[in-house]
């Protein structure tokens, strides 16, 4: 792997930048691999990387339907945080935040990591109680959450001029999560892809998986793709919203619903907000990107959806809520909007487990899975390589549905 550094930049600069090599190869598709990962998104690439790095398994192919990092990793709002509710979730996300902080060095790729803390603007007492409760659980696991006064909320977010005492929902106070950060989503995909490729992992783009293949004994034997059959003893499904579409080709049903979550971006403006602002009672959150754009996320569409767009009423609701707290944003032009589909289980916690089909692994149910990429890849690679669940993800099983033993999570954006 060629080194990316100031020195290499200078050295290649002397040569008119003609000497850079490709960041990853495009090797021919082999008929057999030890592990096949479906989906070159965040979780798929991270799993491939940790399989190679932590467990020395490099005979891995990552099959991608479109192009690398073109799915939900390009469609999220890059918020990295660990303010969750459950004993099972918090240590997992704390680990993920920690890995993200060291990712630039580990992958030799600039993640543009910006640790800038998140401020929750609380407008109802019910929400206040819930966040205080989360604070108590988070204290146990070394995540940071502190209550602040309304004055302190307004001092930290000068643009927050709405929500006064006469508003329908006056601001009651806030919570600060100092571990929260944003980074660059493309860099995460490209960094993991480049580092995994350097260790021998093959990334096969433009290779949609049409169906899963099971052997006569019921075990997974490989996948059928548009480029032919690829055999593997272990197959990992890391495809976000289409998990059930893939697994149902092998007759496996999973307790997941696919939904569409939308985001939109304003025109770039001068630095105005230097924290991630989350307004759970009004139903939106945003941060300002390095380019100056406001990156805004809202609520999901009602009902299941495989349509990646934004509905007018969802858009209007989010904008109306935002303007009630940030009236000065009224003059902001919105530049782009998009949706991404993701699947969610009844308890809003992820599923990372070997399925009833031996050799078939799924990582699914990610709602806000971006922040979970490093820990998700690390722990899933452990499960795939050793056959035993990593202690950090031991609760995110499929069994929990069979035993009605949920990990009810309220820390996702939607489950508010």
């Amino acid at each position, binding site marked *: 792997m060629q080194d990316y550094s100031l020195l290499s930049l200078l050295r290649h600069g002397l040569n008119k930048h003609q000497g850079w090599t490709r960041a990853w190869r495009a090797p021919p598709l082999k008929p057999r691999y030890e592990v096949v990962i479906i989906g070159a998104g965040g979780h798929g690439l991270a799993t491939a990387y940790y399989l190679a790095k932590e467990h020395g398994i490099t005979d891995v192919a990552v099959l991608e339907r479109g192009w690398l990092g073109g799915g939900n990793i390009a469609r999220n709002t890059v918020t990295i945080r660990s303010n969750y509710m459950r004993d099972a979730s918090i240590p997992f996300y704390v680990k993920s935040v920690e890995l993200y902080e060291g990712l630039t060095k580990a992958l030799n790729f600039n993640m543009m990591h910006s640790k800038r803390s998140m401020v929750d603007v609380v407008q109802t007492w019910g929400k206040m109680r819930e966040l205080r409760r989360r604070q108590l659980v988070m204290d146990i696991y070394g995540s940071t959450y502190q209550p602040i006064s309304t004055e302190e909320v307004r001092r930290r977010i000068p643009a927050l001029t709405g929500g006064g005492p006469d508003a329908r929902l006056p601001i009651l106070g806030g919570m600060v999560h100092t571990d929260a950060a944003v980074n660059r989503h493309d860099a995460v995909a490209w960094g993991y892809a480049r580092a995994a490729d350097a260790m021998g992992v093959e990334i096969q783009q433009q290779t949609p998986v049409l169906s899963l293949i099971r052997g006569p004994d019921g075990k997974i034997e490989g996948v059928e793709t548009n480029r032919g059959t690829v055999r593997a003893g272990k197959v990992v499904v890391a495809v976000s919203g289409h998990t059930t579409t893939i697994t149902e080709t092998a007759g496996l049903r999973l307790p997941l619903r696919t939904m569409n979550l939308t985001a939109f971006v304003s025109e770039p403006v001068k630095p105005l907000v230097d924290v991630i602002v989350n307004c759970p009672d009004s139903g939106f959150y945003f941060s300002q990107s390095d380019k100056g754009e406001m990156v805004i996320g809202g609520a999901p569409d009602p009902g299941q959806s495989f349509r990646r767009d934004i509905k007018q009423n969802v858009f209007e609701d989010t904008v109306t809520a935002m303007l009630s707290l940030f009236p000065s944003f009224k003059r902001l032009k919105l530049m782009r909007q998009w949706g991404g589909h993701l699947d969610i289980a009844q308890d809003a916690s992820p599923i990372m487990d070997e399925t009833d089909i031996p050799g078939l692994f799924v990582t699914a149910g990610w709602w806000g899975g971006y922040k979970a990429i490093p820990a998700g890849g690390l722990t899933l690679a452990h499960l795939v390589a050793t056959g035993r669940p990593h202690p950090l993800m031991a609760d995110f099983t499929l069994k929990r549905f*069979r035993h009605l033993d949920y990990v009810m999570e309220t820390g996702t954006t939607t489950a508010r």
Partner: protein
Amino acid sequence: MMLIPCPFCGPRNESEFAYGGPVKPDRPDPNAVTDAQWVDYLMQVPNPLGPVHERWHHARGCGVWLTIWRDTRTHDITEAPDA
């Protein structure tokens, strides 16, 4: 934006409706099925890449509950209730 055909009010804006979830199979007698079948009934939601049978409540309208078939890829209503 979807226009949902209400049998009483005609096609109305989606924002007047509350989503009621996909139509589930009839509740089996818990004593007559195995644990696995019972869990299956509780857990499994149809998640088709195509038409899904689902319920909507005209909450900010006449208050009726209705079922439609809606395509999850396009949000076209492929089958509406009888007026």
